[in-house]
């Protein structure tokens, strides 16, 4: 059994396999299928300062090897989270990380501040890359000054590990990653979904109520992998890689490209047990190749 521990800032992971925000609910939805304590962490649903109803139905479209979503951050707000959800999940023996979103910098700050008080929340993930809300969201993740501002302010307000989730909808993701690092983020996670669209040719209407939505799933994996690789050569803080991971081989590819840990998103829908399978699969790979620790493969791509 190889050593699967990985540290991200002050965050200690028993293994690098975590689940992505918006695809794993609050973890408990999956408790019938897996032992949640076997995974490295759970990124819970995007949380905002106030309750949000999200976008109207339809919010989902299937695409070749992927899907579009336009959920639009439906959630009951951070206070409800703290009062009603946190108590029910805080004793799950893994890292619970809250994904924080907002329409203004102040909303981000306020939400982050409130989460400071939660003993069992070791980190937040700042979602500056959601393509599915009208204001804020992706706008912060596609401009260096905007990203700098929100990260700087939240860094002041939030005391634990701060992970910033980057948008792939940019010309140069390394630029944003560097800005985010400079403003004090402890880690970056990438990628969020790619802005995309689906049309029903027969009805001549967009499939999503919002016309465009966010693309995820294996279709985007080659793009995500490239971005992780680029960012790994641009910043020193750890990277959490995600985008289309469907099996242990995919996860290992992200780590070879430079990710210290990974998240599984859309794959949870197809196989709710996929996360623990990845833990086993990574371990098997390490043994087969004679690695003592999972950290040995981080950035170990041979480009000679």
């Amino acid at each position, binding site marked *: 059994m190889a050593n699967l521990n990985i540290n991200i800032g002050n965050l200690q992971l028993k293994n690098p396999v975590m689940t992505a925000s918006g*695809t794993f609910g609050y973890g408990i939805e999956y408790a019938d299928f897996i032992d949640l304590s076997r995974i490295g962490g759970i990124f819970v649903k995007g949380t905002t300062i106030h309750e949000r109803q999200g976008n109207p139905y339809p919010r989902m479209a299937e695409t070749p090897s992927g899907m579009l979503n336009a959920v639009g951050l*439906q959630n009951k707000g951070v206070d409800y989270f703290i009062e009603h959800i946190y108590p029910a999940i805080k004793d799950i023996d893994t890292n619970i990380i809250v994904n924080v979103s907002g329409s203004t910098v102040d909303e981000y700050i306020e939400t982050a501040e409130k989460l400071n008080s939660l003993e069992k929340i070791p980190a937040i993930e700042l979602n500056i890359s959601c393509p599915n809300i009208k204001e804020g969201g992706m706008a912060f993740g596609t401009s260096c000054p905007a990203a700098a501002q929100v990260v700087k302010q939240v860094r002041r307000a939030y005391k634990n590990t701060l992970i910033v989730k980057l948008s792939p909808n940019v010309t140069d993701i390394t630029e944003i990653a560097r800005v985010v690092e400079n403003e004090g983020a402890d880690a970056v996670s990438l990628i969020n979904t790619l802005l995309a669209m689906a049309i029903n040719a027969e009805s001549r209407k967009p499939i999503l109520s919002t016309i465009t939505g966010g693309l995820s799933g294996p279709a985007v994996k080659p793009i995500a992998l490239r971005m992780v690789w680029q960012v790994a050569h641009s910043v020193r803080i750890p990277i959490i890689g995600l985008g289309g991971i469907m099996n242990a081989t995919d996860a290992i590819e992200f780590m070879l490209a430079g990710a210290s840990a990974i998240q599984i998103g*859309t794959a949870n829908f*197809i196989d709710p047990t996929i996360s623990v399978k990845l833990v086993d699969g990574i371990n098997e790979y390490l043994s087969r190749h004679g690695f003592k620790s999972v950290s040995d493969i981080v950035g170990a791509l041979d480009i000679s």
Partner: protein
Amino acid sequence: MSKFILDLIVIENRKLTDQYVLLILKSPEKLPEILPGQFAQVRVDGSSTTFLRRPISIHYIDYEKNELWFLIQVIGDGTYRLSQLKAGEFLNVILPLGNHFSVPKDYKASLLLIGGGCGVAPLLYLGANLKRRGFEVNFLLGARSATDILQKSEYDRYGNVYITTEDGSMGERGFVTAHSLLKSSNFDYIYTCGPTPMMKAVAAYAAKIKAICEVSLENTMACGIGACLCCVTDSTEGHVCVCTEGPVFNITKLKWQI
């Protein structure tokens, strides 16, 4: 209720019409308790265009034989693949998902189960269950023409079966809501599943006769377990997930204009 991921084995694939098949599946392990109205998320293998699982209603369960039935209507490539499954092949399912139809408190309540098209699927198991609990069950099944009236002999086993067809080739001609039964009888409970326009018409009728009305909604789903929030419908409590708060809704909870 605990949810399970099972590899069911195909016992029989019975072709009912050009568009419909009945899949009879056996579970290697004892089937868990499943209530009428619940559904399964079915993984479709070997289809290069089907990425997500497909929601399929529980059509019937035979606990003695440990068998489960799906009624499949071929719509696109996912359901086409399901319709091509052969005896001996496996089908990976997550179940039981969603809520269920309610059972009237008063066992003398008069009940009507109205289904159209593939919407008849959950009503068989519901009818069987209600009969077992001592209710008198009335089915009203609608379809385009006689060939699309599926599994009639199965429904016959659990209640009175009334039929409408659009072309009049079986039962009364017209839509379900025009059936003479609705004029001659009164009902306390109406359960319905089928195309939305049909369910809206049924709901309007139910409102008129002041019957309690439960509808089973269809919706595009990714996870089926309340994790992705893709499958919402507008309700009196705001956006709720059809996969966990539904698929069965008391009509008073929906914001339908009826």
